């Protein structure tokens, strides 16, 4: 029964991983940018939530109303102020600039908040759970996180496929030059895409912080989980990313069951196996 429980918990944490991955996948889809600082931005959101919760006394969920728009604005500014200038043919500039950004964010957080681990208080949510039989308990917070992940992905799909701005995202991703002669201002579209990505990052950060302790150096691991979820699930497919997150979560949970020190390793190894046998992922989007 412990194994079933491990799998169930793994599925639930997969939702969180899918949240990590969704923002990453979105940005790569629209502008072929991989943001090395992605994980650090998730941790930054968690710290911002810490501050706003302390300052306003709002609870975890209500606090999203502040953090999400804040990060969205930050995303737009970041894209138009810095990252737009790195885009082009060469892969080095975006990679190195976002790497530098990662270092800056981590050390900025370290200077301001010290290396102490933190946690976001969610009150009763933290400890609530309900049994579903067979001795398995489902935590309320993990369940909420999973449901929000599904909701976020559904929302992103809707934005991409049923709204004018989503149409502009897809067109710009297909052919940035022709998109411009349609009247699309690429710089603005990329800014909007990054705003959307960081909005998702904010949600991910808040639920990360509620679920586990975090410190300034927690970012890179989140980037890796998000990245692995994207690759396992398949590029260009957000629902696939959810599947990837779940597979990763389950792999880690099973690994932890076998031996506590193997949790992370199990996840990485499953990723490498998928990379070896299905390099395009399990559910890649079929190119028209």
């Amino acid at each position: 029964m412990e194994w079933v429980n491990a799998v169930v918990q793994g599925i639930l944490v997969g939702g969180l991983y899918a949240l990590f991955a969704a923002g990453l996948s979105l940005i790569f889809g629209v502008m072929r940018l991989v943001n090395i600082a992605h994980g650090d931005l998730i941790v930054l959101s968690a710290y911002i939530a810490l501050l706003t919760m302390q300052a306003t006394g709002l609870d975890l969920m209500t606090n999203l109303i502040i953090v999400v728009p804040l990060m969205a604005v930050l995303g737009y500014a970041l894209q138009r102020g810095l990252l737009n200038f790195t885009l082009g043919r060469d892969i080095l500039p975006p990679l190195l600039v976002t790497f530098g950004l990662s270092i800056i964010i981590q050390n900025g957080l370290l200077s301001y908040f010290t290396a102490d681990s933190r946690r976001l208080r969610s009150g009763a949510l933290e400890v609530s759970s309900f049994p579903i039989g067979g001795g398995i308990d489902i935590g309320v917070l993990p369940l909420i996180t999973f449901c929000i992940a599904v909701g976020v992905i559904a929302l992103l799909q809707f934005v991409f496929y049923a709204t004018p701005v989503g149409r502009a995202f897809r067109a710009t991703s297909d052919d940035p030059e022709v998109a411009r002669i349609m009247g699309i201002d690429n710089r603005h579209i990329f800014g909007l895409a990054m705003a959307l990505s960081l909005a998702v990052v904010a949600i991910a950060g808040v639920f990360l912080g509620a679920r586990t302790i975090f410190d300034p150096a927690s970012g890179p691991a989140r980037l890796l989980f998000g990245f692995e979820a994207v690759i396992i699930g398949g590029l260009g497919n957000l629902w696939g990313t959810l599947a990837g997150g779940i597979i990763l979560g389950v792999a880690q949970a099973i690994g932890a069951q076998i031996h506590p020190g193997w949790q992370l390793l199990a996840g990485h190894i499953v990723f490498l196996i998928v990379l070896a046998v299905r390099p395009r992922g399990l559910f890649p989007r079929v190119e028209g």
Partner: protein
Amino acid sequence: MSEAARFRVTQSTRTSQVAAIVALAGIVVLAAVPWWGGRSEMLLLGQIFAYLALASLWNLLAGFTGLVSIGQQAYVGFGGYMLFAFAIFAGINPLLTIPIAGALGALVAIPVGMLVFRLSGAYFAIGTWVVAEVFRLSFAQVSALGGGSGNSLPAHVVRGMAPDRDMRDMLIYWAALAIALAVIGFVYAILRSRQGLALTAIRDSEPASESLGVNIWRTKFIVYVLSAGATAMVGALIFLQKLRISPDAAFSVNDWTAYVIFITVIGGIGRIEGPLIGTVVYFLLRELLSDLGPVYLMILGAVAIVVMLRAPRGIWGFVVERYGIELFPVQRRLHLEGAGGSPGMRRTGASAAGADAASPAKPE
């Protein structure tokens, strides 16, 4: 066609010949440090040589071959652990196992390379990072090598390296100098060779070079494996200097990738001279600013960003563009004679900073 112009291809220039002489003198001076310098100088220089070697290798991968890896710490740590393994399990003199660690590093890079080469661009970069994490987590599980908290080099092995401590310091120092020179020589040799020309062709245009018969995948793979081996060798040296190893130190992305990238970017990606300058600048900044702690790192990050956006060719790139100097001549010059009368000179694109050539300007 009796009017066909004759041509010859040359590689060295006056400046590079002068530089070679200066370099030779410099090497002699450095080799003599044990006599005119003390322990701390040797330690510092040893660190400088290690970073110089790592940066040159990363430059070869990213700047010349287009393989941007942020996981080279995997091989640094691997090399270190191999050295320690030989010392702990077999008691072999570490100075002898440095090259073996390198060879093993190259060997392990083969399956790793086959995996990560399934990814490209930025995804390749993150993939290499995942591999490094796998290495870190795996070595942390090996209790015989110290597990999560690591291990020191056994005392009897340390003593067995040389008759006394001073001699030992000298041997390690000369090993560091030799390795740094070997690595730079290796990078230079590759770039002067036909492989190097192939690399530049690939960098300028993959489709074009492929149509000319260049096997892109194999060329890149060979460079990746050889670099990994050399990196592992440097890693072995680094941890020999430290006399202690642990998973977090061995596979630290900050120590072995972030700083290395900084050095290469500031100095000049795609130029052999770049890492030389970058290393000097890095250690100067470290001397001046490291007291600031995390702020120092923020400054490094900010400087790297600014350089990447404003002066993407780094300090040395700037110098080359202004003055056309090249200390390590890899650019091939085509001298045309006959037909047109006076011997003309045209430079062919064996320069590694390929983006200026005939690429269409992207309007944006």
